[in-house]
C-alpha cells in the first residue's frame, strides 16, 4: 500500500513536472507563410498547429487545418478564435494594425525574415527550435541543409566544367495565355542560379513578356511554375496557343520542366534542396546520353 502511494506520488510529480515545462512553451500555434509552416512541421511542431494561412500547402496534412486566409490580410478575430498562444509568420504577414490587435490579446507574435540565404535560415531555425523546445533538432536540420546546398554547389560547378550553362526562362501564371517571366531579383531567379541555370530574362520582378521576345531569347530550357500548367496536356495547350513558344529550342528538344510554385514563396524551405537536384539534372543531361 505504502509502495502504491509512493508510486502514485511519483507519477503525479512526473506529470506536474512535464506540465510545468510544457506550460513555458506555446502549445497552440498558428503559422503564416509556406516555408515557415513546413519548418514548424519538420521540427515536430505539426501537432501543435491549430491554423495556417493559404500559402501553407505542405506537408499535405496542413491543408486540413482551419485556414486564416491570405497572410497579408489576416483578421484579428479570426486568428483569435483559434485560441492560439503564438502566431508565427514572415515579415509579409499583416496588416500591422491587425498584428497589434492580436498582440494586445496576449498572443505571442513572432516575425521571421524570408530572405533566401543561409544565415537567415540558421537564425530562423534556431528561433523556431527555441520556441518548439527542439533546439538540437533545429541545429541538426540546419547542418544537413547546409551540407545539401554545398553538395548542390559542387554538383553545379562540376557539371559546368563539362557543359555550358543552359539559358533558362521560368514562367509563372499564364492563365490569360500570356505567361509572366521571372526576372532578376526574384526568388525564382535565385533558384535558377542555385540549380546552375542561366536566367535569360534581364528585367526585374515578374513581368508579362511578349511571346516574340520570348522566342528571340530562344531558351534551352523552359521551367513552368504554375499549378494550372502542370501536366502534359496543359502544356500542350499552351504551346498550341503560342506557336512561337513551341518553336523555341527548349520546346523542340522537349526540355520543359515543372517546378512547384510554392517553392517561390516565403524564403528557403525544406523541400528546396531536392528540387534543386531535380532542376540541375534537367539542366545538365547525363553525358552518356548525348555522347556518340
Amino acid at each position, binding site marked *: 500500500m505504502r509502495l502504491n502511494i509512493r508510486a502514485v506520488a511519483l507519477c503525479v510529480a512526473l506529470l506536474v513536472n512535464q506540465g510545468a515545462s510544457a506550460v513555458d512553451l506555446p502549445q497552440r500555434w498558428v503559422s503564416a507563410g509556406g516555408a515557415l509552416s513546413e519548418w514548424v512541421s519538420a521540427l515536430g511542431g505539426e501537432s501543435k498547429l491549430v*491554423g495556417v494561412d*493559404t500559402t501553407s500547402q505542405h506537408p499535405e496534412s496542413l491543408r486540413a487545418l*482551419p*485556414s*486564416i*486566409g*491570405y497572410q*497579408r*490580410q*489576416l*483578421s*484579428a*478575430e*479570426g*486568428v*483569435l*478564435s*483559434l485560441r492560439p498562444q503564438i502566431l508565427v509568420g514572415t515579415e*509579409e504577414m499583416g*496588416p*500591422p*494594425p*491587425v498584428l*497589434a*490587435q492580436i498582440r*494586445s*490579446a496576449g498572443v505571442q507574435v513572432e516575425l521571421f525574415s524570408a530572405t533566401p540565404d543561409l544565415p537567415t535560415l540558421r537564425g530562423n531555425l534556431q528561433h523556431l527550435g527555441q520556441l518548439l523546445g527542439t533546439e538540437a533538432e533545429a541545429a541538426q536540420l540546419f547542418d544537413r541543409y547546409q551540407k545539401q546546398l554545398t553538395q548542390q554547389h559542387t554538383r553545379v560547378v562540376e557539371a559546368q566544367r563539362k557543359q555550358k550553362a543552359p539559358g533558362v526562362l521560368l514562367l509563372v501564371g499564364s492563365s490569360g495565355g500570356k505567361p509572366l517571366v521571372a526576372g532578376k531579383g*526574384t526568388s525564382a531567379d535565385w533558384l535558377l542560379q542555385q540549380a546552375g541555370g542561366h536566367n535569360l530574362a534581364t528585367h526585374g*520582378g*515578374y*513581368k508579362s513578356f511578349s511571346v516574340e521576345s520570348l522566342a528571340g531569347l530562344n531558351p534551352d530550357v523552359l521551367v513552368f511554375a504554375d499549378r494550372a500548367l502542370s501536366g502534359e496536356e496543359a502544356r500542350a495547350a499552351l504551346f498550341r496557343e503560342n506557336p512561337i513558344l513551341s518553336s523555341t529550342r527548349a520546346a523542340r528538344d522537349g526540355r520543359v520542366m515543372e517546378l512547384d510554385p510554392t517553392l517561390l514563396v516565403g524564403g528557403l524551405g525544406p523541400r528546396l534542396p531536392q528540387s534543386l537536384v531535380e532542376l540541375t539534372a534537367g539542366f545538365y543531361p547525363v553525358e552518356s546520353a548525348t555522347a556518340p
Partner: protein
Amino acid sequence: MTALVKPRTLFIGLGVLCLLATWLSLALGPVSLPLLDTLRAALRLLGLPVAVDGLEQAELILGQIRLPRTLLGLAVGGVLALSGVAMQGLFRNPLADPGLVGVSSGAALGAAFAIVAGSALGGVPEAFGPYVLSLCAFLGGLGVTALVYRLGRRNGQTHVATMLLAGIALTALSGSAVGLFTYLADDATLRTLTFWNLGSLNGASYARLWPLLLVSAGVALWLPRRARELNALLLGESEAAHLGVNVEALKRELVFCTALGVGAAVAAAGMIGFVGLVVPHLVRLVAGPDHRVLLPASVLAGASLLLLADLVARLALAPAELPIGIVTAFIGAPFFLYLLVRGRA
C-alpha cells in the same frame, strides 16, 4: 414614383434595422462570446460599473476589435450612400454614383502611388504606413475631383454634362496610371493593391477612425439641410434657379461634400463599390424621390447594409475573411433586382 410607406414608418423601420445591425455586428464574430458576457462588456464600455471578473477577453474583443470596426462600418456605409444621393441629385440621373466625379479613381490612384512608391523607396516606417496610404488616397480623391470640377466650369457656370465627361476622361486617365503602377509593382505589392481595391473593414483602430467619423458626421449633418434645393433641382437647373436656389453654390457644395466624404471613406476602408449607387435607389423605390426623406433614410440604410455585409465577410469563411466589396454586391444586387422586378409587376 410615389412613396410605398410613410416617412415615419420608414424611419422607424430603418432605425430598428440599423440598431439591430449594430448589435449583431458587436455580438457576432469568429470568436463566440456568451451573450451575457457581450452584454456586460458592452455596458462596461458605456461606462457603467459592471464587475470585471472573467470579462477581459470579451472586453478586449468588443472594445478593441468589434466596436471600432462597427463604427467604421456605420460611417463608411452612411457617407457612401449619402454621397450617392448627392451625385444622383446633381446629375439628375439615377445611374450616377460617387465615382462619376473621379473621387474613387483619384483615391485609387493615390493609394496605388502610396503602396507602390512606398515599397520602392524601401517602405515607409511601419507605424506610419496606414496613415500615409489613407492620406494619399484622400488627397488623390480630392485632387481629381477638384480637377473635374474645374474642367466643368466655364464663364462662372458649372456645366454638369461637361463635368460628367471630364469625370469619365479623368477616371480613364487615373485608371491607366494605376495600371502603370500595377505593372511596376512586385508580386507582394500587387497583392496589397488588389486587396485594397476590394475594400475591407479589417484592422479598424480608433486612431484611424476619428478623422473619418468627423468628416462623415459633418457631411451627414450638412447635406440634409440642402434637401429642398435638391428637390428643386429635380425640376431642372433653370427651374431651380427661378425658384430661388443658388444653383452654382449648390453644385459646388454637393461636389465638395462628396469628395470629402467618399475620399475619407475610401481612405479608411478601401474601395467598397455598390453602396453609393444602389442604396439611394433602394430607398427611392420604397420612399419616393423626396430628398427630405431620401437623404437621412439613405444614411441609415447604407450603414445597415454595410454592417450586415461586413458580418457576412467576417463569418462566411472564418477564421479567414472575405473582402467586403465582394459581399456588398453579392447581397445587394439580388435584393435590388427583386425590388425592380416586383415594382414592374
